[in-house]
């Protein structure tokens, strides 16, 4: 079994180092700014000066998780990101198109998707497995599956997380490409320490599943629960990005009629790996209310991708 030893999120909500934050969140109506800690307390100046927003958020959240877990070095670092380091990518792209002569290399260096996991390894001086998954709205779920594989291969402690950042250009793109009325575009970084040992009452990950393709979602969810001898009423808390009505999935919502339902995207704002925030919200709610036994997080944000995470409250 895999347990959540520590969790940390830096987002547009007061989520950082706030146990119980999930209980009194208000939906975001305007994106505003990320609520960030003083990064200098987490990252030394020499590295900080080159880091864009996504890197600062990610490294600080990762560092916070390490401190909270107080268990030393993780065996591995696994990160999911839908769009990667957009700010630096746009900066270098603009430079290649507008400047002549030698170009400043820093933005190029910081533009690759694996800069996030790479910088975390540098700061921790961690020589373990270091991986970056980028699969649109399922990037976090893929990172989580990889982390669980590592734990099943004999590792004990894995740092896993997801991050994405918004840039002004993305607003323009979404105005032109997205038709549905979706929450505001935001940035977010959430990191978690997974542990194979249980030391205190905590939340366990029972299973994670991803599915690409437009097959019958109801059947996939049903089979997923059945694999664990569960039926719909066994789920105490259902987390989805948007409400079933908003997504035109009324019939799907009905089978969970008796289950407490909660959304996360109106709180996190929209970014590809926002399900990591939904995951953190669920963990926080479960830790605050031990009566919640099973939680199912359904990530159906993209029409052709489905992510499922099954959690359970555990006693030590």
């Amino acid at each position, binding site marked *: 079994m895999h347990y959540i030893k520590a969790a940390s999120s830096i987002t547009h909500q007061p989520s950082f180092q706030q146990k119980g934050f999930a209980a009194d969140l208000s939906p975001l109506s305007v994106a505003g700014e990320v609520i960030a800690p003083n990064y200098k307390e987490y990252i030394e100046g020499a590295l900080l000066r080159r880091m864009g927003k996504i890197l600062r958020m990610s490294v600080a959240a990762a560092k916070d998780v390490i401190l909270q877990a107080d268990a030393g070095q993780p065996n591995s670092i696994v990160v999911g990101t839908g769009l990667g380091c957009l700010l630096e990518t746009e900066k270098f792209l603009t*430079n290649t198109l507008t400047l002549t002569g030698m170009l400043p290399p820093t933005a190029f260096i910081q533009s690759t998707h694996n800069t996030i996991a790479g910088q975390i390894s540098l700061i921790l001086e961690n020589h373990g497995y270091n991986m970056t998954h980028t699969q649109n709205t399922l990037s976090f779920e893929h990172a989580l599956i990889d982390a669980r594989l590592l734990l099943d291969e004999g590792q004990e402690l894995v740092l896993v997380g997801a991050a994405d950042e918004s840039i002004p250009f993305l607003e323009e793109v979404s105005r032109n490409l997205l038709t549905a009325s979706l929450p505001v575009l935001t940035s977010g970084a959430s990191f978690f320490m997974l542990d194979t040992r249980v030391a205190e009452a905590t939340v366990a990950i029972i299973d994670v599943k991803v599915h690409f393709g437009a097959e019958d979602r109801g059947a996939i969810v049903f089979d997923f629960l059945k694999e664990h001898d569960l039926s719909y009423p066994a789920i105490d808390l259902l987390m989805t990005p948007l409400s079933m009505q908003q997504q035109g999935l009324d019939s799907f919502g009905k089978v969970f009629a008796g289950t407490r339902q909660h959304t996360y995207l109106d709180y996190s704002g929209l970014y590809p790996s926002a399900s990591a925030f939904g995951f953190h919200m669920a963990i926080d709610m479960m830790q605050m209310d031990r009566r919640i036994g099973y939680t199912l997080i359904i990530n159906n944000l993209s029409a052709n991708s489905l992510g499922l995470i099954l959690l359970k409250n555990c006693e030590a």
Partner: protein
Amino acid sequence: MVPAAKISITGLGIVSAIGCGVEENRRALVEGQSGIGTTYSETLPEGLLVGAVKQSDQELLQRLRLPNGYYSRTSLLGMVAAREAWDGQSSHPSLRTGFIGATSVGGMDQTEQFYKQYLQGRKVDFKSLITHDSGYTMEVIAQDLGLTGYVNTISTACSSSANAIMLGARLLQQGRLDRVLVGGVDPLSMFTIQGFRSLMIYDEAWCKPFDDARVGLNLGEGAAFMVLENEKSIEITGRLPICRLTGWANAADAYHQTASSPDGKGATLAIGQALQKAGLFPEEVSYINVHGTGTKNNDLSESIAMQNIFGDKLPPFSSTKAYTGHTLAAAAAIEGVYSVLALRDGMLLPNLNFSTPLAETGLSPIVELQTGQDLTSVLSNSFGFGGNNSSLVFSSNGY
């Protein structure tokens, strides 16, 4: 302990500067024919040496007979290689099938065309941006082959496709999948060309991997995929194993964002752990396809790492980057295909453009093609930005 499941490689597909398809690539390797040259592309700097795939986007579209739509060159190249490797296999109700691709820049070739017009204030088609993100690039390839379920993309710079291959192997070994198509693709783009130029490691002349006078790399483009199957899958598909994938490892150098450590720490860990996973002593490695980009830093650090593991009994080794250019996220898959061909055909591939060994280590790669060799295990190294180091081990079927 339950014995580890055997992982067989049953299909290969490739497109690179030295050819379209496995056979064209094999022939060019044997003939010592490099694919690096100056380009005549409108979108790339004139006179620059690159390893370009010789077909234009339009030619690739026609070859693939695709319906109209938005395609990045990345997806087009990926589809060419993925179709060859997949070889028209169909879905099977009792086989769990997955797809894992790797790319470092996704559809950047399209994005930079768009952004150029956008900055000039011209009328732009925002829909072309749907091809930008890396995950979408792979979804297009998966859809082309009718693959659903586990579809994932890895992005760890120049080691990306080694990590995609490795993840596929792990999913098979843990019984999560029965067969998986794995590989990687990257196109040439101004973004990466200017990026490596800004790092002052782009050789304006031919790259010279492992040569003392090396000054940098030439970029290339391409794609390669391979099919991994477990025993249950082979029983059902009836496909013949070409060889096995026996070892893999990834380790972080944690030294510097772009430079490799002088003691080759991450690379040494990756090579050592991959051999351990394969259950091999260092002296059992028959050939090493090195990362060998031709930069001062990589080739020295990789030499030190190899000496750390192999001491003075270093197996024959060579870099094939002077054939294809450095194809970034596709490199490990392309070189994985070459490693499999070396193993299958019993040949040691030459390291082109080499004349003088590194002053610091004195290591000399294979410079002439050697055939009729009895190879049992081949090591393939791939190292990337962020200190991301991966090694794979391919072994012959009987081994």
